[in-house]
């Protein structure tokens, strides 16, 4: 049976032959309680053909795709409902927002390139502005390196060290009568003289980081916009997981006109579409949490926010105020604005007020913005991540 690495290797060769890559790395996330989700990495691919698009053009706004049903009742009668703002603590209630009976069977496969990405970009990605903030919780990163030396056995013979050792031995044995005329063929070599380098685990201490993921899940976010935001955050999140072996702490916040914290990433990415949009609420909630739990003292704090740029707070007064406050303690704010394709060349509200407030230039070291199109592909999304954490 072919392995994942062989498949990826094969896929890499496509580029040499002038074709686009086809394999994406997806992950199946099996939700568990209390953030103990099981993540299984699997490859996925799409066989592209000419097929009909499934969009329904005549559909009225706010109306979903019809399906079959059975049971008592009259036409027009409501037979069930599903809250769009999921209740915390109601496990198993959330679903994927698609409603029952869609044959999903809990197939939460997100495509993300995350694993590959983590591997490939781990050198390029570095959390910016990391400061030492005490050792409340050690963040250890392990590196394997051929640094330790060992006599007798090991992986690589250290020739220089070995030669030194041999000469030392021979001097003590009186085997070198004339230093100016050494005859190396006369050397006596003991097995203990051979010095090897061996693979060892190095611990790398770093300051602890806390990452807030913020996502707009208001009504306007439906469709590709959410997909793009989520896949960008998935990549960031999985890269963090890969790189720091789950040692980075993460918090997840969703907002429409009000913000709420959810307990794990699964909920964060699967909850769908609710009401209007007030961006400020999310930033305010972060500020409140940081203040209440006194997090700024011990952590490097990173905030990533994803939105389509809609905000009821048109000039962003409240939002800017909250961001200003945040800038006093945060190490980096990264805002991704994913534009609907119908927006055209117009600027969205969030983009507009962020730019006109001047924050972006005044604190260019602390806050970054990335504006992308809802049809952005993976490479564009990755580029965006680099921009956000540069």
């Amino acid at each position, binding site marked *: *049976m*072919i392995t994942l690495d062989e*498949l990826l290797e*094969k896929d890499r*060769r496509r580029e040499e*032959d*002038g074709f686009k890559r086809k394999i994406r790395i*997806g992950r*199946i996330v099996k939700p568990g309680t209390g953030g103990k989700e*099981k993540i*299984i990495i*699997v*490859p*996925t*691919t*799409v*066989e*592209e053909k*000419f*097929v*009909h*698009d499934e*969009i329904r*053009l*005549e*559909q*009225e*706004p*706010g*109306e*979903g795709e*019809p*399906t*079959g*049903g059975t*049971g008592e*009742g*009259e036409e027009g*009668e*409501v*037979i*069930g*409902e*599903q*809250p769009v703002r999921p209740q915390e603590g109601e496990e198993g209630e959330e679903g994927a927002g698609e*409603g*029952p*009976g869609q044959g999903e069977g809990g197939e939460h*496969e997100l495509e993300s390139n995350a694993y590959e990405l983590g591997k490939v970009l781990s050198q390029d990605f570095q959390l910016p502005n990391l400061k030492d903030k005490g050792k409340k919780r050690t963040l250890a990163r392990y590196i394997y390196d051929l640094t330790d030396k060992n006599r007798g056995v090991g992986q690589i013979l250290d020739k220089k060290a070995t030669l030194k050792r041999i000469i030392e031995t021979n001097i003590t044995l009186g085997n070198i009568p004339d230093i100016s005329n050494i005859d190396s063929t006369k050397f006596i070599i003991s097995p203990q003289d051979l010095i090897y380098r061996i693979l060892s685990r190095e611990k790398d201490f770093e300051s602890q980081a806390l990452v807030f993921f913020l996502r707009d899940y*208001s*009504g*306007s976010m439906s469709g590709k916009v959410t997909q793009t935001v989520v896949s960008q955050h998935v990549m960031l999140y999985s890269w963090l997981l890969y790189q720091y072996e789950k040692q980075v702490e993460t918090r997840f916040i969703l907002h429409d006109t009000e913000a709420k914290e959810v307990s794990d990433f699964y909920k964060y990415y699967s909850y769908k*579409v609710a*009401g*209007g949009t007030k961006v400020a609420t999310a930033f305010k909630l972060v500020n409140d949490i940081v203040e209440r739990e006194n997090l700024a003292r011990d952590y490097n704090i990173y905030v990533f926010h994803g939105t389509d740029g*809609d905000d*009821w707070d048109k000039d962003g007064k409240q939002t800017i105020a909250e961001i200003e406050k945040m800038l006093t303690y945060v190490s980096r704010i990264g805002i991704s604005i994913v534009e*609907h*394709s*119908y927006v055209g060349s117009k600027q969205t509200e969030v983009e507009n007020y962020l730019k006109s407030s001047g924050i972006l230039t005044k604190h260019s070291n602390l806050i970054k913005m990335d504006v992308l199109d809802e049809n952005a592909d993976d490479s564009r999304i990755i580029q965006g991540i680099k921009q956000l954490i540069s």
Partner: protein
Amino acid sequence: MELVSQHVKGIMEECKLRAMDHGLTFDDETLEYIVTNRDMIELSPKVMIPTLYDYWVHDVRVLSGKGMYEAYPSNPFETVINTRPAISFYNDNNPDWLNVMIFYHVLGHIDFFQNNLFYKNTWDIDLTGQALSDKRMIAKLRSEKGRWVDYAIEFARGIDNLVGYHRELNLNILNESKQPLNRTDFYFDIFLQKIKNVSHNDYLKEITRYNEGLHNNGDFFNLVVNKYPEFEELYRKELLIKRKTELDIMEYIILNSAFLKEDENEWIKAVLQIVRNTSLYFQPQIRTKIMNEGWASYWHDYLFMRDDRICGHEVDYAKVNAAVTSMPKVGLNPYALGMRLFQHIKDMEDRGCYSFDYELLKDEVEKKKFNKAKDSGSDYILKVRENFNDFTFINSFIDQEFVTAHNLFVAGKRFNNERMSIEYYIKSKKAEDYKEMLVDTLYHPPEIFVDLSLTKNGVLYLNHKFESKPLKTDYIENTMIGIEYLWGGPVHLETSEPATSGKTAAAYANFWDPSSRQTEEKKPEPVKWKRMLYIMENRKLHKREL
């Protein structure tokens, strides 16, 4: 993978006898294998054909299937493949009584494969053998050409949903009937309509004259020859012309691609042919899902309920059967729907409801009481399983009686702004709407063909027939890169796209943001369409409006 034990095989043989007594017909020989769930995962990307050619997409599917199994283990009861002899796969941990039920279900499938006319082209092929030789062929090519074989497979599979399945089937059935075109058909279908282009009125007059001629034994063609002296000569010529057949895209490329005509590229034709044949083989299965599953479920229920081996396991059976064939409150279950529809058809036919007398009744009570005691339902459903596919099955037999009897409805889904919830509601209980909703779920690849009049100067011109549905634009580029490769020159694709999609989306955004702009309660305008031309040249895609 091993054959079932003699004991289990005995149960199967017993089931066969009883199934045949009730009118099912199938080959005597079948093969039953015990497989593990792991085997199933490895087989399913190869459409359960163990000997299908190797391809990396299958490997990707296997790996993701394994991951899926790790997260969500499942235990399929059976899988049947349409081969001669029919092969079926089972889990090994079933008790005898359950095996009886599963075997009846499997025999339903086998009977369907071997009798439904849409499978006609698969009857004379030994698929496992064919697939094995294809697999060896591909393996041999791979050892010579390396990964380019995989590209050839990929590009061929990119268009394997556009194969001319219906045309192949039609040819087969026509060849069998071997009826030469008779003089009357030629006169009315070809001569008047295509050669003479007579007016509608004149055409109808001729038909009336022909019908009158039938009554008084007059010689109809006497007058025809007087009027058109060339008629006989043209008729004779027509008989000599072999029926010209339209080629599907894959065939057209195989026969006409300049690139494939070069000696070092000949081998790609073989790959195209293999992919095309494999696709053709599976076409009937995709198009008869509801019927096939419904038919198997109908028979496992019918036969097992009348089998003494159910004794003591009635409750167990009820549980298993309910899990397979219950109708979900919201959603569709093809097993359940097909089974109920077959039961409904049998009942209607038993009472003689497929008749004018019944159709003319206006009174609901009369309709319910209607019973001519024809009791011909069993034969009738055997005919239905022989002559229908999912579309015709649904389109012909879903009637208001069926929808009402099973409390079926079209379930709608909408957003409730005040309650912040998604509501499910009964959108319609009309048979017509239910039918439409079902038909929308059926397999329906786009109809795209080579436009011969515009295919010239090395350009392959494809035309997508307009059916009020756009193509999925994300997939167009890679598909066309593949066609360009196989064709060895530029490829044009003419298709339709909605011209007003932006507008409805903007209205959607307003809906959520009442504070800014006034909510427009207008319905979105009817979609306008524009004709687009996609041009693929040197692996670059352009498009322009026509």
